[in-house]
């Protein structure tokens, strides 16, 4: 038995040593002061696609989340937090602000009016930086009749559209449910029809809804609201 273990170690050790060499993470600290286009020369030469290009704001998520990331060779955590949480200690002259928080470049010109278009494109991207109360903070303060939500507008800003256009209400809500949450953070208005206790009891659950799993893990927190 001992011999087997020793033999295994003798065989495995060189393999591990080779792997350590072959897969060693490239330390980029020495290159941190290079201009980005200058990085491309080495990258393409060594078979690694250049990054920090035109789509970097969107595509950095995958590289930054990998455990073998080397972001910290050039950046500290302030780079993440400045963009994700509005920090401004290194604000560039081109950086605009929303009140005291620095805004990322994607939040263009009249962002208050334009953001519903952007928020619909991948409805999960807002939540990468903002918690749900962030939306409610603004939306809860606006006069509902001043909003131009697609179907709310048809009924003069009231909820009457739900009865008048039930299919459209469902389609719109399913496409961007986060926009409902922005104005109705606790969802009470949804319960008018979707509760199992009151109203017309319309089932809002998707097919194959994992009620038991969600209920058991979350202590039935959301379940008891309707059931």
């Amino acid at each position, binding site marked *: 038995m001992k011999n087997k273990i020793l033999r295994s170690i003798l065989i495995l050790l060189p393999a591990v040593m080779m792997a350590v060499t072959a897969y060693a*993470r490239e330390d980029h600290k020495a290159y941190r002061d290079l201009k980005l286009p200058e990085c491309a020369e080495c990258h393409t030469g060594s078979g*690694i696609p250049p990054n920090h290009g035109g789509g970097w704001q969107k595509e950095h998520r995958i590289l930054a*989340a990998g455990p*073998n990331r080397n972001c910290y060779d050039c950046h*500290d955590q302030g780079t993440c937090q400045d963009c994700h949480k509005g920090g401004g200690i290194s604000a560039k002259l081109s950086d605009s602000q929303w009140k005291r928080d620095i805004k990322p470049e994607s939040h*263009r010109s009249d962002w208050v*009016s334009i953001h519903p278009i952007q928020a*619909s494109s991948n409805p999960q991207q807002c939540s990468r930086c903002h918690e749900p109360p962030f939306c409610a903070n603004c939306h809860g*303060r606006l006069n509902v009749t001043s909003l*131009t939500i697609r179907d709310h507008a048809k009924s003069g800003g009231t909820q009457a559209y739900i009865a008048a256009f039930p299919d459209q209400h469902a389609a719109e809500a399913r496409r961007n449910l986060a926009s409902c949450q922005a104005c109705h953070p606790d969802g009470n208005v949804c319960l008018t029809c979707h509760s199992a206790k009151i109203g017309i009891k319309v089932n809002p659950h998707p097919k194959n809804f994992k009620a038991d799993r969600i209920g058991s893990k979350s202590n039935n927190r959301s379940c008891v609201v309707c059931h």
Partner: protein
Amino acid sequence: MTHRARFLWIGLLFLSLTPAVSLAADLRFQSSTQYLWYTDPFKDKDQSDLVQYLKFGATKLEPTGRLSAVGYGRLSGQFGGENDPKLGDDDGLLGRLYFLYVNYALPSDRGDVRLGRQYVSVGAGSGTVDGISAELRNLGPVHATVFAGYDVRFAETTDRTRSGNYLAGVSVGGSLFKGNTVDVSYLRKYDESDVIREMVGVHADQRILDKAKAYADLRYDVLHGTYSEFLGGAKLFPFQAPVTFTAEYFASYPTFDADTIYTAFAVTRYREGVGRVDYIVTPRLTLYGAYTRADYDGPTADIGTVGVRATPKQVPGLGLNASLDLRNGYPGDLTGFQASADYAFGKAMLAAGISYDVFQRDSMTEDFSAKKVWGGGSYEFRKNMTARLRVEDTETRQFRNEFQGRASVDLSF
């Protein structure tokens, strides 16, 4: 963050900086004092803030140099207007702590162990925790990340942790063979000790013949029993000149934390296909363009963007950026451009930019336009002291002129 937790972290930090362990410590500070003025859209009134940022790094806290401490935060106070705590117009100072942790670097660049407030990220999700994390790398083909702690939730004026709110994650990956990475991660989020989010992330990428890279990334929502996000793509860079072609397919099924009733509602999938080209013509000229076809489970949209970044040789110190964006389809149309230039001469820099957008959301009956013009300058008084001034005027749908500005003095020592 509760006061108790904040004092705990600050206490830990000062403990690490005590003379006994920091005789040869190298301390560096970065500070930015900013005066901001703007129109509050909710009140239609001018307001101003005084903001003090501070970032520090302390290295060589012990003889081997493996222990370091870093921190970053800000204090702000608002002047003028009516006090409205919900909008952050508190009577007192508002604080925000971005990170504050002690870092222990493992020997031979094998990784880091961090204790304190920090940004954490694995393929399954990301967040900020008051807790501990460990990143292990260069262990042959294997790398790993693990973290756990109080979940820090940022809101308009707060960054709070609460007992019962936790965030934990783990990620293990490796290179099966050269040019390949596979990674599996897991993330769990608690609210008042109930599990409200449970995600699994899987990532794989492969470099092909040193001319291409294919990758796939999946986020699976365990509670809802469905994938939450999927990205599959490939990058091709076949030429000696740095031209990169990217093709991606992305699908999103938005799921919600289980502490809200929205977790129980049916949603539809969002899908998009992206084609992008990045061309570094010379180190002084970069061009890029992208086309996206978005599908909202029925309605669609076409989105295009082209851009250029240049630093002309003929005018040393000049930098130019411009981009054009076109969008047509659900849930709105947008045509806009952004352009900016900066010019550095001696110890000074001047910069200016403009952006102009014409847009119409589906719910609108006519086009609206918005224009933003900004300009600014900086001057380096000393190597470690720079003053900056930036002013901006925006014409929005709601306001004819919305002025804002920022004056700052930045120091490093």
